[in-house]
Each structure stands twice: as C-alpha cells, then as structure tokens.
C-alpha cells in the first residue's frame, strides 16, 4: 500500500453495471463498474438508514439502495432521489494491471 492506495479486487471481478463489496480496516466499501465501464468506490452503507448498497442495483452511473430505492450518483456520491438526502462519501479509484485500487487513507 502506498499513499493510501489499497488493492481491492480484480477489475474483471466486477461486472459492467454492477457493484460489489470491499472490506478494509473494519469498514465496508462499495466498488462500482458503471454502464460505460468506469470504476468508482464509495462507503458501503446508504446514508439514509445504513442499508448495504452492495445489494443494490446499478443503473448506468446510479446506484439504487435496496431498501427504499433512494439513489446516488456513483461518480460523485450526490444524493439524487428521496429518501436519501445526504451525499455518499466517495473514494478515488484506479485500475492498474487488471487490479482495482482504492485510495482510502493518506
């Protein structure tokens, strides 16, 4: 790990337009691959009632919470639709040699 970058998973372990969980340091994160194939990361829990976003549904570049259908923009974490009102914390992501890295600390 350097400068806060953490190796999370293989790039092909996340399907296009899908999300998968990643745990590190006692915290849960959500890793996304959008409909256009880009990778992003955010906190794993919904800001509304702490539902697990990795059980949610990715629509293009939007993640829909599995419990109440609240929506966030995966790219920015912006809360898009009630009942979510608080933005999601996002983390920088890079893909190198077929591996997904997330910048969590540093």
């Amino acid at each position, binding site marked *: 790990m350097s400068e806060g970058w953490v190796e999370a998973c293989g790039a092909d372990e996340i399907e296009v337009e*899908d999300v998968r969980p990643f745990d590190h340091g006692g915290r849960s994160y959500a890793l996304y691959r959008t409909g256009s194939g880009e990778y992003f990361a955010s906190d794993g829990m919904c800001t509304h*009632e*702490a539902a697990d976003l990795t059980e*949610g*549904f990715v*629509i293009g570049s939007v993640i*829909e919470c*599995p*419990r*109440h*259908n609240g*929506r966030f923009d995966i790219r920015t974490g912006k809360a898009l*639709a*009630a*009942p979510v*009102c608080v933005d999601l914390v996002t983390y920088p992501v890079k893909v190198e040699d077929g591996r997904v890295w997330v910048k969590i600390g540093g």
Partner: protein
Amino acid sequence: MSNALARDYRIDAETIRRTSAAGLGDAEWYKSPIPRKQLKELMQRRDGPAIRDTILWFALLIGSGVGGFLTFGTWWAVPCFFVYGVLYGGSTDSRWHECGHRTAFKTTWMNDWLYALASFMVFREPTLWRWSHTRHHTDTIIVGRDPEIGAMRPPDIAGMLLNVFALKSTWVSLQGVLRHAAGRVNETEATFLPESERPKVYRTARIWLAIYAATIALAIGTGSLLPLLYVGLPTLYGGWFVIFVGLTQHAGLAEDVLDHRLNARTVYMNPVIRFLYWNMNYHVEHHMFPMVPFYSLPKLHEAMKADCPPPYPSILAAYREIIPTLIRQLKDPTYFVVRPLPAGAKPFSAYAPFAEEGSMVKT
C-alpha cells in the same frame, strides 16, 4: 370499546426509542436466498410495460368519463362512473405505490410525473407519503414505528367500513392537508419527515387546496355536481377497491416480526385485478425485494416460493381467513394468524418472533 389487551399504535419519539431498544427498529430482515445474477435480471427496469398500462389506464379513464358525461341523468351513467371511480380512486393506489418506489418506469421523470398525479387522485400528499411508505418498508408492521398499519388489534371495524368509501382515510388526509397548508406537521409526521422536506409538503398542500377550491367553485357556478364527480369524489366512490385488495396485504398476520413471509400475504388474483393492482398481490415478494418492478413480480414469486408459505389461491380464500381473524381479534387482540413455512424453508429471523405480546400493551 376499551380492551385491556389492545395494543398501542401511537408513533412518537418514545415509541421509536423503545422499539429500537427492543431490536425492532431499522433492523435486519430475512431475505430468501436468490442468486445475485438472477436478482439483477429481475430488477431490470423497462419503460414498455408501464407505458402500455398507463395508456390503457388513461384510455379507460377518459372513455368512462366521457360515457358518464354523455349519459349523465340516466341510469347508464352509474356503470360509467363506477368504472371511472375504480380507476381513479382505486387502481390509482397501485400507480401511486409503484411510481413512489420509482420502479414502474425505467425513466425517472415518468415515475415522478405519474406519482405526483396519482398522489393527487388518491389524496395522499406525495412527499409526506413517500417518507411514510419508506418507514413502512423499514419497519413493516412494527407497532410503534410503522405508520401504515391498516388493521390494528383490535381492528377498527367501523373505520374499515367507512373506508369502503375512503371516508376515514380522506378525513385524516384532509386534516393533514389543512395542517400542512398552515405550515405545520404533527408529532408522528415529525418522526419520519426530515426538516428539509417540509417546505415541499406545505407547498403541495396549498396547491391542492387551490385546485379543490376551484373545482368546488366550478360546481357551484355551473349548478352541477359533474365537476366533483370527476375530481375529488371519485377518490371516495372508487375507494372500495383500495381496501378490498389492500386488506389482503397484512391484515390479521403477525406484528413485530422481522420476516415478511410472516406478516404479508401473496394472493393469486385474476389478470383484470392484477392490471388494476399492478401485481401488488405478490406482496411478500414486493416487501422482501422492493427493487423488483411490478411486471417482474410473478417471476420473482416463482424464484422464491419454495422458501415461502403457500400463496392464497384467491381473494376469497384470503378473506376466508381475514374476516374470522378480525372478528376474533375484537375480543382477543393477542390473536393473529401464524403463516406456515414450507419444509426445508430457511427459518425466520433469530430475533424473538411473535415477541410483541405484552411489549406494548396498554395498561
């Protein structure tokens, strides 16, 4: 009638605290095991089915409305307005519901547009009820948290009968609209409606009052009941459909359990009612996986039925259970129907099921 065993359905800061302490608030609910790949396919959104149904729905609304206008003053107007009322005051409930979840259409604005219209037609304030329904999904039939428990223990039979014409529900909604138009929320609403959302509630309430005032003024000005037969009154005279299908969802089943298989019903219904109801007869499935759109619920039902209690074969079968249960609960509010899980089904939540007795009983 007072009943020493009657449960207390008030929702306030204290009941929220108490149910949270009991592990019943915002809890982890049972989910039937469905592979992620299959669930993703079931969650896929399309515009087609809802557009098709909405065009048909509007065509029937306009057709029955025009028929009522042309035959007004004759007995032929009765079936016309009957159909108009079922569509306007009855089936709109399911349009409101599915678009509130934003699952009916793939396109967001279509969901939001139909949700706003349907909210007006069924007289449920859109922002308030979105948050109310959110709570219903977080805490389904958890006493002291769920604001949408339709059949309490003991049941309010008079209220249910009034709601055959949506009288009680409309009266409660009207008080809310007046309260919100004055810029206030009550204690229960304050437990689930964020401060940031309240201006929207107040604005909508004022717009609605203006629309209803204009409709009443038009009826008075023209000396005709017709304007109110098209706007406002159909919520009442078509409201029977809402309670007719709505009671099958949860009435008489367990409270305070973290498993939708035990507190919701799946009832087989005919294609006409499923069109009007947008497949909400698959209610266990809807609650367990609310991201699955209405048109995929039959497939979801097939995928999880081996893990669920047997579905009811008809509305009649459901009411054969519901009516005797409600009558018995008048004298014994501790009674409820225990749904049988099939052999081999995963057990329900480890959290003490059926633990509600005594936990919130009025003293």
